[in-house]
């Protein structure tokens, strides 16, 4: 029934009389804030999804692997969960002006994303952060992915193959279902897998199978949980000669702003406390205090 003139819900209401945009929507064109449309949602890696959304051509064209977007993960009439969630780009599609993210449905924000259907709108902020770099003289690239950490490395491996580099791609997951299907990677890539339960590939951690590849590699890339980086360091360091190969890692920090303003996402480095949303998320493993 129609509200009494004095209604209880006034203060938390969205303003109905004034033209508004989606919560988190920005001025189109003037900024890295934009609204995008969900184009497809596909199950992958067990409990994860590949979420493909529209994006302005200028955004898609200049994107680099390792960059991420901060996405509003709630209904526009709600303020909870409040903060945007960062997601690395899994693939950028210039032809369709769209981006794909790999999202593991875990907590509140990712579960909300996993419920999206084509046609839904998402409020995006990005691209944010620095990116992986492929040094000119690095021909042999070793990539190590832990779980959904695989996301930015997929885009990086595409780039590497386009640049005719040799790629060995090692992925670890809890079980076979959690692995990326090989068809998602270029056929030019050597794909090595490890599972905690031994259901496919090496029975154990991804870091246990890389020993043979480290001396081969000119450059190492890794993305996964923080303990993986500590293990990685322990495995790689004794095999290095003149501190080569070097390792680029993408760190995960809780974020509020994504633009260097709040200093909530810092990483302790040899040069001090650095905002991972601007000077990261990609760091050289040698420079990070873990």
């Amino acid at each position, binding site marked *: 029934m129609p509200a009494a003139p004095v209604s209880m819900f006034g203060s938390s209401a969205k303003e109905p009389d*004034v033209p508004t945009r989606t919560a988190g929507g920005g*001025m189109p064109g003037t900024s890295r804030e934009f609204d995008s449309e969900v184009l497809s949602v596909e199950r992958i890696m067990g409990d994860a999804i590949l979420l493909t959304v529209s994006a302005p051509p200028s955004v898609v064209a200049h994107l680099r692997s390792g960059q991420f977007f901060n996405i509003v993960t709630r209904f526009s009439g709600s303020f909870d969960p*409040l903060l*945007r969630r960062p997601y690395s780009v899994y693939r950028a599609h210039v032809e369709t002006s769209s981006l794909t993210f790999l999202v593991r449905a875990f907590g509140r924000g990712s579960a909300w994303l996993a419920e999206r259907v084509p046609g839904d709108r998402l409020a995006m*902020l990005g691209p944010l952060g620095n990116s992986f770099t492929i040094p000119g003289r690095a021909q042999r690239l070793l990539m190590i992915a832990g779980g959904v950490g695989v996301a930015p490395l997929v885009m990086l491996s595409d780039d590497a193959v386009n640049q005719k580099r040799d790629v060995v791609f090692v992925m670890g997951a809890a079980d076979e279902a959690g692995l990326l299907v090989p068809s998602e990677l270029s056929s030019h890539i050597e794909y090595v897998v490890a599972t905690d339960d031994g259901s496919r590939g090496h029975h154990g951690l991804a870091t246990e199978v890389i020993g043979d590849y480290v001396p081969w590699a000119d450059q190492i890339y890794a993305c996964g949980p923080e303990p993986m980086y500590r293990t990685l360091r322990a495995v790689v360091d004794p095999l290095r000669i003149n501190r080569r190969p070097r390792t680029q890692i993408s760190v995960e920090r*809780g974020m509020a702003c994504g*633009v260097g303003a709040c200093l909530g996402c810092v990483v302790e480095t040899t040069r001090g406390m650095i905002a991972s949303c601007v000077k990261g998320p990609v760091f050289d493993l040698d420079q990070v205090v873990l």
Partner: protein
Amino acid sequence: MVPDLSVDLAPNNPRELRLRNPVIAASGCFGYGEEYAGIIDVQRLGAFVSKGITPERRAGNSMPRIVETPAGMLNAIGLQNPGIRGFVKKYPALWETWTVPGIVNISAESVADYANMAAILDEQPAIAGIEINVSCPNVARGGYCFGWDPEMSAEVTQAVRSVTTLPLIVKLSPGASDIAAVARAVEDAGADAISLINTLVGMAIDVRRRKPLLANQTGGVSGPAIKPLAVRMVYQVAAAVRVPVIGMGGIMGLYDALEFFLSGATAVQIGTGIFVDPGLPIRLIDDLRHWLEQEGFSSIDQIVGIANDGFHLGAPHVLTAWEAAGV
């Protein structure tokens, strides 16, 4: 006629603090003004407040520094900043090239340190005003927060006032039981304006690790969750002082901002809302103008405090019931 959004936040100060519009980016949420430059048109803001500056440079707290809470967040950044000397080396020169006024937020553990910083700032170009953050522990009083006590807050205000003619905003702590008493004390001590609220002390426990989630144990709660507390305190303080009041706490859109203006705020600050929705402050300027026009107001002044007819001090479960026929 296009409604006039300009406000003066220091009417008693010859140096003035005139803003083109009453929308200000809050301290700690906007860096030093340059961080959002590629994302929004920073120069359109009424003003912005710098991250809190301290006497010495600080690396801040260990991680994690932020946790999400229901409709809010907890932060314990620990005032990571280059220190007053690092600040003056870089920012005044940069701000001089801008049209948007920059206000410097200062934090210290002793009255003397507050005054020393203010004296340094007084000589700098392009500083529109100082905002004193009194939500800091007073080491001389065993760490009891300056802002919880009217006298200690007044002491800081007076010390700063005596070394600078810059417009002076005192930013109150919501931890004070009687925030109106603190407001009156700092007004008497020479504050040109009062801003509130700072964050409230909160905590979250990591159930898996069985200890506080923040490395610093406690942090400050901000965001929509604290809005009803902030509106109450702004209403209460606006009823108690004559200097301009700057309201903040959980503003996420036009209607939230209007709650503060109608309660008695001459201007508003936006903190957490910028993280979540960077376009918000600029959109708010446009939405405010549009709303004033639509409602037939010719200036923002006309709505300041029109919902405020005095504050009744009282606890939540007050005994002021209107006695009706029975129960």
